[in-house]
C-alpha cells in the first residue's frame, strides 16, 4: 500500500487521522525533534516574539505553497512566483499611493498576479510549453519588467494604517498574515480534499488523457490552478509589501525555490497526481524552523543552505523507508 493521496491510508475516527496520514509521520517527527532540540539549546526559540516571527515567515510561504501544491498535483509547476511577488508589491503600493485606497491597491495587485497566472496557464495549456521552462521564461520577463515599471522601491506615501496592519497587525494574539494564511490553507485543504475540483486536479495530474476522456476539461483545470497560484502570490506580495513598508523590485529572490522545496518536502509528487496540503504545511514549518533556529542558535548563517539541503534528502529517504516497511 503506497497510496498517500486522499483517503487511502487515512484512519478515520481519530483526531490524528483527520489531519494527517502516515506519510506525514516522518515530517512530524522531524519537526518535533527540531523544535525540541532548538528549544533545549536556546529557550528564546519558543518565546512569543520568535514564534510569531516564525509564523509570519511561514505565512508568506504557505500562502503561495498552497497554490503550488495544487499546481504540482495537476502536473505543472510555476517558477515565476518569486519574481511575481516583487512585482505585485510594487504595483499594489503604487496604486495605493495614487488612489489612497487599500482596496483598490489590493485589487490591482490581485488582478496583476492573477493575470500572470493566467499567462502562465495559457502558455502551458494552449501553447503546450512545458511549464518548467515556460515559467522560467515568465520569471525572466517579470524580473526585467519590474525594473521597467520602477527603478526603485515604491515608497509608502499614503501612510494608511490599514495597509501597515496587513503585514504587521494583529487580531487578538494572532498576526494578520497568519490568519490570512490559515484561511487560505483551510480553503485550499477543503477544496483539494472534499470537492470535485480537488479530485479532478488529482485525476488530471495522474493521467491527463484519462481525465479528458472522462469528460474533464483538463486544460481548464490546469489553467485554474495557475490562476489560483497567481492570485495567492498577489496576496503574499501585498503582505510582504506591507511588512517592508515599500514595494521592492528586488524582493523575492529565490522565493520560488523555497516554496517548491517546501511542497516537495511535504511529499507532493512532481509527476502529478499525488500530494497533500498537510504535507505542504509541515514542509513549510520544517524549513522555516531550520532557518530561524540557525539564527537563534547563532550558528554560521551559511548553514541555512546546508541544513535544509540535508533535511530535504533525509526526510524523503525516511519516507521511502517507512513506506517499504508499511508494505510488509
Amino acid at each position, binding site marked *: 500500500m503506497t497510496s498517500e493521496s486522499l483517503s487511502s491510508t487515512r484512519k478515520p475516527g481519530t483526531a490524528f487521522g483527520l489531519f494527517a496520514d502516515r506519510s506525514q509521520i516522518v515530517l512530524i517527527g522531524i519537526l518535533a525533534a527540531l523544535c525540541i532540540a532548538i528549544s533545549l539549546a536556546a529557550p528564546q526559540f519558543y518565546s512569543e516574539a520568535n514564534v510569531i516571527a516564525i509564523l509570519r515567515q511561514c505565512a508568506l510561504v504557505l500562502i503561495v505553497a498552497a497554490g503550488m501544491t495544487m499546481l504540482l498535483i495537476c502536473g505543472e509547476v510555476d517558477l515565476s512566483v518569486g519574481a511575481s511577488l516583487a512585482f505585485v508589491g510594487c504595483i499594489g503600493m503604487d496604486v495605493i499611493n495614487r488612489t489612497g485606497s487599500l482596496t483598490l491597491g489590493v485589487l490591482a495587485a490581485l488582478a496583476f498576479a492573477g493575470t500572470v497566472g493566467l499567462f502562465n496557464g495559457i502558455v502551458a495549456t494552449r501553447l503546450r510549453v512545458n511549464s518548467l521552462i515556460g515559467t522560467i521564461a515568465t520569471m525572466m*520577463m517579470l524580473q526585467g519588467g519590474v525594473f521597467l515599471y520602477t527603478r526603485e522601491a515604491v515608497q509608502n506615501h499614503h501612510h494608511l494604517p490599514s495597509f501597515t496592519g496587513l503585514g504587521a497587525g494583529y487580531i487578538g494574539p494572532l498576526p494578520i498574515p497568519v490568519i490570512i494564511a490559515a484561511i487560505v490553507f483551510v480553503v485550499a485543504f477543503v477544496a483539494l480534499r472534499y470537492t470535485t475540483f480537488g479530485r479532478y486536479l488529482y485525476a488530471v495530474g495522474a493521467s491527463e488523457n484519462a481525465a479528458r476522456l472522462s469528460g474533464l476539461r483538463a486544460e481548464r483545470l490546469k489553467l485554474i490552478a495557475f490562476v489560483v497560484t497567481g492570485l495567492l502570490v498577489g496576496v503574499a506580495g501585498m503582505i510582504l509589501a506591507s511588512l517592508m513598508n515599500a514595494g521592492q523590485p528586488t524582493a523575492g529572490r529565490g522565493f520560488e525555490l523555497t516554496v517548491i522545496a517546501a511542497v516537495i518536502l511535504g511529499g507532493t509528487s512532481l509527476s502529478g497526481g499525488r500530494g497533500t496540503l498537510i504535507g505542504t504545511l509541515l514542509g513549510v514549518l520544517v524549513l522555516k524552523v531550520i532557518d530561524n533556529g540557525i539564527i537563534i542558535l547563532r550558528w554560521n548563517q551559511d548553514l541555512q543552505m546546508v541544513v535544509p539541503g540535508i533535511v530535504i534528502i533525509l526526510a524523503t529517504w525516511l519516507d521511502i523507508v517507512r513506506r517499504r516497511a508499511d508494505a510488509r
Partner: protein
Amino acid sequence: MPQSLDAAHPVPPPAPAAAMLKALFRRSEIPLLISLLVVIAFFSIASDTFLTTRNIANVLGQSALAMTAGIGVAIVFISGEVDVSVGSLVAAVAIPLIVVMNATESLFLGIAAALALGLVVGAVNGYLSAYLGINSLIVTLGTLFILRGGVYLYTGQTAIPDEAMLESFFQIGNGRLLGLLPYPALIAFVLLLAFAYVMRHRPFGRQVYAVGGNPEVARLAGYSVKRVKFACFIISGLLATVAGIMLASRLGSAVHVAGLGFEFQVVAAVVLGGVSLSGGIGSLFGMALGVLILSFLSNGLGMLALATEWQLVVTGGIIIAAVAFDEFKRRRI
C-alpha cells in the same frame, strides 16, 4: 537466424523522399536550427559588430560552459532523472582545483582533485537517486544547497586566488586555437561529439534512452536501471567539473559566487533543446542548439546595447516562442 535468410535480405530500401522529409521534420533539431539561424540573421542585420569572426568565436567560447555541463544534464534528463546541482558544483570543484594547484604547482594534480570532487558528488547524487530511490530533483536540489553552503563555509565567503599562476591553467579557459577559436569551445565541441556518439552508437547510450523511455521495459530487457542512472549522474558530475575547471581558468580563481543560477541556464537550454523532462526523448545536438540560441541571444542583445530589463523580457519571450513553435511543429507533422 538461419544463414540461408541472411544473405537474401539486404537493408530495406530507403524511404521515399516525402517520407524522409517528414522524418526529418519530426526531429526536434530542425525547428531549433531554424530558430538559431533566425536569431543569427536578425542580429547580423541589426548590429554591424555581431557577425564578425571574432565575435562568433567569442560566443562559441562563452557557450562552452553551459554546453559542457548541458551534455551531462541532458543525459541525466534522458535517463528520466534531473540534475540541478550543477550550478553549485561548478563553483565547488574550483576549490580543490585551486587549492591543490596553489599547494603543488601542478595543473594535473589540481584537475585530478577537481575531478575527484565531481565524481564524488555525481556518485552521491546517483546513489541517493538511483539506489535509494529518492526523487532526483529533491536530491540534487539538496546538493545544490549543500554544496553552495559548503563553498561559503569553506571559503568564508571570499574567492581563493590562483597563486600558482600556471600558464597552462590560464590557457584552458583563455587560450585560443590559432588565436581564434577559444579552447573551451574546442573542448565542449569534442565532448559533444564524443557523447553524441555514445548516445547514438554505444549500447550504453541506447540503454540510457531505454531506461528513460520506459524503465519497466528496460528492466524486463535485462538492463540494470539503477546502474545506468547511477552512471548518468557520474557523467553529469564529471562534465560539470570540466565546466567548472574552464570557468575557474577564466576567472583565475575559485570564486564563491560563481555559477549562481547556472542550473537555471542549463536546464532552460536543455529543455529548449527538446530534451524531455519525462525521459527518453531528446538529443545532445538539440541541447547544443538550445545553448547556442541562448548564448547568441545574450550576445546579440548586448550588441544592440539593450538594457538588461529588456534583455530579460525579450529572452523570456523568445524562449516561450521557440518552445511553442517546436511543440506546434511536433503536433502538426
